[in-house]
């Protein structure tokens, strides 16, 4: 019988009461008395030289408080990049300046040129129209190979070229070349991992609020990691020490990675508020979000897979161009390298794996982490080339994968990571059961009878989550530690506030984290609340991304709770006149082993705060503990996914008929929330596979700048819930964190795109169309073109 509370139970999400009844407190709900509003005048050209910005007429417009331009930020720091990559020749990456407002040049459509602060937003917009811009349009570069040609326009004039770095990783070239030379078969694919716009439901918002009374600044912002923003903005951009800077990320309506980064608008509102001694608010419009939120993906890759005569994988080699956009966003440089190259072994024991990545500047919006961040790109390449190899060799794609699975753990890959545990056969078996492989021929025949093509696609994936061991990522160039932290504050009557570094913006931490603490203490979950999102309240944790919250911050919370238990046992021992070593905690009662003497949780906590009868000579009063947790390894969730599609050969339209996932997330705390995460992740992956396409024309104009042209997945793009099964019953617990958890937030978005594309190609090939590949999104027009090509 399923548990009804604690670890493994599925209580309903307590935060949903406020989210679903309009009682949430989002950043745009925060209004500071007397606040002014900022409107950013953004470049409408992709590349241009700023000759003059004349704000004199605009400054006299009604309601205008002050107009800022790049000149106001000379001498102020630029937006920093959080990860330095060393290229294959040992040189540091190129790291151009990223000013808060454009200085000298504009480098992408949406680059902020001026910021107009006024009493109302409409007045600011009116004044923006009165600013006279003299910007000389320059040729733009959008295409990555073009950007690397000697005669390409330079995005940054102070750099020699548009190459940020040329990175190589994994097996050495000689060994790799030998493996390819000896191969019985080599399959090669050229693949585009399409650029995406994250599109969280809540656009970004920032409110800067300076208090002259104590020289303190508060920034309310839509962030996944308020402490990271405080550190980056305080230390690197504005020079405000931490004790004078508070960052609050209240309810946040979805992030998907794009709210990790430190953005110009946040720095601006904080800076401007200090300048004008008045709060400054910015709320992004959806149109602005398309041209100012960091985009995701945008890799172009050639991948080669070598196999021996027995179809064993012998080598993988990739050459990727990764688009950085016009500036380096906070973690942009780590995505195509350490978050991508390290996963190129996948679930397979390929002895040689070499990854080459050229990161390229272009006149486009900066690109950074988006749900999965590098791991979807790696999985897509590998799982597409394996499928194509199976087709070329005429072997079963599932059998080919099974034959090459890693089966012994721990396993050190040629790309530096050590998988601690896993069972890829188990998830594959489960997937085959869920999709009903045996019934597929009959389903295909039924589709064909209606003139449709039906395909079955499979995919296996592994990801590295729980980022990350700080000493390791420090060696790899990270400029931040990646531990997390939690403070467990037990109140006098036994209720608990847990202050966590993780940030919940849809994940359900407020429900899940109390389940863990309640289980450990044997008390009711309703006695426990989570506090997150405010640097003045929470310990210095690093926030939420990379499916890390439970694995890293949850581990810190477990450690802190263990400290609480240890201290509470001392107090209980005192109250029960027994040795603390004999005290047992069960169901919220401390008892002396082997006796009927016990004291309740609430009596112990009260004693801690009303220490009349208390061992003051041995321990301090109070019951509050903090722990920082730095993981010793990544976690490695893995799974096997399958999908069945129907393709209408007349129109090219793809319909997903059935989608199943078999994930191994290790231990699962709240199955309902895990299933929701996977459902949502798969929906996003289906969006990437079939619909979403952030597209620029050759002049750097954004073609998909609104929902009229950027296709988000909707409910009817997904299979019916009865045909959309997510399973997490295969569990190999993580070996190195106390909960044995691996993380589930990104799996769906990683595992689903190649599954869908493999299924479409299976359908087309079953219909006699010899199609090796179609780039995502696999739109009706592209499928039709492939059929008729």
């Amino acid at each position, binding site marked *: 019988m399923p548990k009804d509370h604690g670890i493994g139970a599925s209580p309903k999400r307590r935060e949903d009461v406020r989210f679903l009844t309009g009682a949430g407190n989002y950043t745009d709900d925060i209004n500071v008395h007397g606040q002014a509003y900022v409107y950013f005048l953004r470049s409408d050209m992709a590349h241009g030289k700023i000759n003059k910005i004349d704000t004199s007429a605009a400054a006299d417009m009604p309601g205008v408080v002050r107009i800022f331009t790049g000149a106001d930020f000379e001498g102020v720091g630029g937006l920093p990049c959080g990860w330095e990559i060393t290229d294959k020749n040992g040189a540091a990456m190129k790291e151009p300046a990223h000013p808060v407002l454009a200085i000298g040049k504009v480098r992408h459509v949406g680059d902020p040129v001026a910021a107009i602060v006024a009493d109302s937003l409409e007045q600011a*917009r009116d004044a923006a129209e009165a600013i006279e811009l003299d910007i000389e349009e320059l040729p733009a570069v959008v295409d990555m190979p073009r950007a690397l040609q000697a005669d390409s326009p330079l995005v940054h004039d102070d750099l020699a070229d548009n190459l940020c770095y040329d990175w190589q990783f994994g097996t050495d070239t000689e060994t790799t070349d030998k493996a390819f030379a000896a191969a019985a078969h080599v399959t090669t694919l050229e693949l585009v991992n399409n650029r995406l716009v994250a599109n969280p439901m809540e656009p970004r918002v920032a409110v800067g609020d300076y208090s002259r009374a104590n020289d303190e600044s508060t920034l309310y912002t839509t962030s996944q990691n308020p402490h990271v923003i405080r550190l980056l903005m305080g230390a690197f951009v504005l020079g405000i020490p931490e004790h004078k800077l508070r960052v609050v990320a209240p309810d946040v309506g979805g992030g998907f990675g794009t709210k990790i980064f430190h953005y110009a608008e946040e720095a601006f509102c904080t800076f401007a508020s200090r300048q004008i001694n008045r709060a400054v608010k910015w709320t992004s419009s959806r*149109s602005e979000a398309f041209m100012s939120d960091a985009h995701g993906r945008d890799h172009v890759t050639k991948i080669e897979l070598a196999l021996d005569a027995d179809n064993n994988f012998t080598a993988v080699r990739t050459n990727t161009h990764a688009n950085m956009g016009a500036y380096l966003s906070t973690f942009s440089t780590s995505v195509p390298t350490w978050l991508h190259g390290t996963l190129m072994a996948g679930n397979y024991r390929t002895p040689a794996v070499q990854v080459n990545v050229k990161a390229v500047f272009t006149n486009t919006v900066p690109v950074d982490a988006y749900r999965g961040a590098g791991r979807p790109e790696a999985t897509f390449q590998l799982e597409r080339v394996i499928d194509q190899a199976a087709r070329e060799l005429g072997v079963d794609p599932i059998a080919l994968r099974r034959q090459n699975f890693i089966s012994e753990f721990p396993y050190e890959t040629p790309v530096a990571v050590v998988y601690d545990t896993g069972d890829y056969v188990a998830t594959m078996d489960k997937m085959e059961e869920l999709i009903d492989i045996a019934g597929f021929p009959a389903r295909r025949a039924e589709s064909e009878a209606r003139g449709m093509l039906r395909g079955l696609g499979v995919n296996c994936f592994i990801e590295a989550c729980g980022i990350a061991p700080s000493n390791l990522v420090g060696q790899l160039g990270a400029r931040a530690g990646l531990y997390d932290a939690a403070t467990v504050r037990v109140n006098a009557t036994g209720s608990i506030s847990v202050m966590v570094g993780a940030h919940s913006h849809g994940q359900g931490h407020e429900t899940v984290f109390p389940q863990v603490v309640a289980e450990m203490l044997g008390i009711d979950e309703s006695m426990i609340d989570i506090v997150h999102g405010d640097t003045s309240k929470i310990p210095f944790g690093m926030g939420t991304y990379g499916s890390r919250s439970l694995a890293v911050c949850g581990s810190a919370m477990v450690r802190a709770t263990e400290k609480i238990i240890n201290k509470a046992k001392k107090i209980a021992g005192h109250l029960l006149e027994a040795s603390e070593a004999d005290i047992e905690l069960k169901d919220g009662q401390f008892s002396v082993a082997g006796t009927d003497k016990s004291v309740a949780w609430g009596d112990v906590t009260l004693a801690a705060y009303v220490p009349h009868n208390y061992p003051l000579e041995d321990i301090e009063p109070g019951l509050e503990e903090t722990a920082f947790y730095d993981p010793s390894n990544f976690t490695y969730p893995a799974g096997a996914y399958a999908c069945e599609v129907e393709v209408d050969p*007349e*129109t*090219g*339209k793809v319909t997903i008929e059935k989608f199943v996932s078999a994930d191994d997330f290790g231990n699962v705390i709240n199955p309902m929330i895990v299933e929701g995460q996977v459902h949502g992740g798969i929906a996003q992956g289906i969006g990437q596979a*079939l*619909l979403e*396409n952030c*597209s620029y024309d050759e002049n750097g104009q954004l*073609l*998909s700048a609104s*929902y*009229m*042209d*950027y*296709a*988000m997945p909707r409910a009817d793009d997904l299979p019916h819930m009865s045909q959309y099964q997510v399973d997490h019953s295969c569990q190999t617990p993580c070996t190195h964190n106390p909960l044995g958890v691996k993380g589930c937030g990104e799996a769906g978005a990683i595992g689903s795109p190649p599954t869908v594309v493999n299924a479409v190609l299976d359908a087309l090939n079953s219909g006699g169309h010899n199609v090796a590949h179609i780039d995502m999104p696999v*739109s*009706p*027009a592209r499928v*039709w*073109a492939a059929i008729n090509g």
Partner: protein
Amino acid sequence: MYSFDMVRPTSVADAVSALGQEEAQALSGGQTLIPTLKQRLASPSVLVSLTGIAEMQGVCREDSGDLAIGGGTTHATVAAEAASIYPALAKLAGGIGDPAVRNRGTIGGSLANNDPSACYPAAALGSGATIVTNTREIAADDYFQGMFTTALEEGEIITSVRFPVPEAAGYAKFEQPASRFALTAVYVAKYADGVRVAVTGASENGVFRWTEAEAALSSNFSPDAVAGLSLSGDDMISDLHGTGAYRAHLVGVMTKRAVAAAG
């Protein structure tokens, strides 16, 4: 948006009078105009709402047998109230946008805007409808004059639209994945004197009649009748969502499916 005045007259005469003001702009359901205003792409001095005019509301069958729909009638109303008279038209109305759009958007607004990817122009042209304004009656064949262009004069209001009810009709829409407007859609209507075929979403020149298909279907009203026909993609819209050649191909497929849907 920029500031503007707004009036909500209760008669066509008052609306016409209000539209005589400098920089006046008619506002019906606002499904195109309001977003345009919000983006500051239009700056009317006065908006004249047409939604308060009773004589422009509703669906009825005239003595002639024709279906008359008031210019200010929403898509949702047409979907509900025209279903028993002209089911294919009601079904088209029920498939426009989403519920919010259907409860605000109006037939007059859609036809006056003549978006090249809108549904109603295909129904009006495909049915040989009559566009009735405050000053005259305009045959659909004369009304649509290219993308976002119609025969309407400045200040002229569509008060109603009159549809001859066909023996059979069908509409097949292939949706653009993002906007879910018609990437290409075809309306087919069979009358005693022949079949009309109108295509929306495809052409650079807006809604048009596919006369070859009309001829073929007039002699044999079955999906197979258009099997051998094809259109050139040269004048078709080519964008992120499909080339002209793809749209030209879809015209054939959607025509076939519209005929099949007509039963």
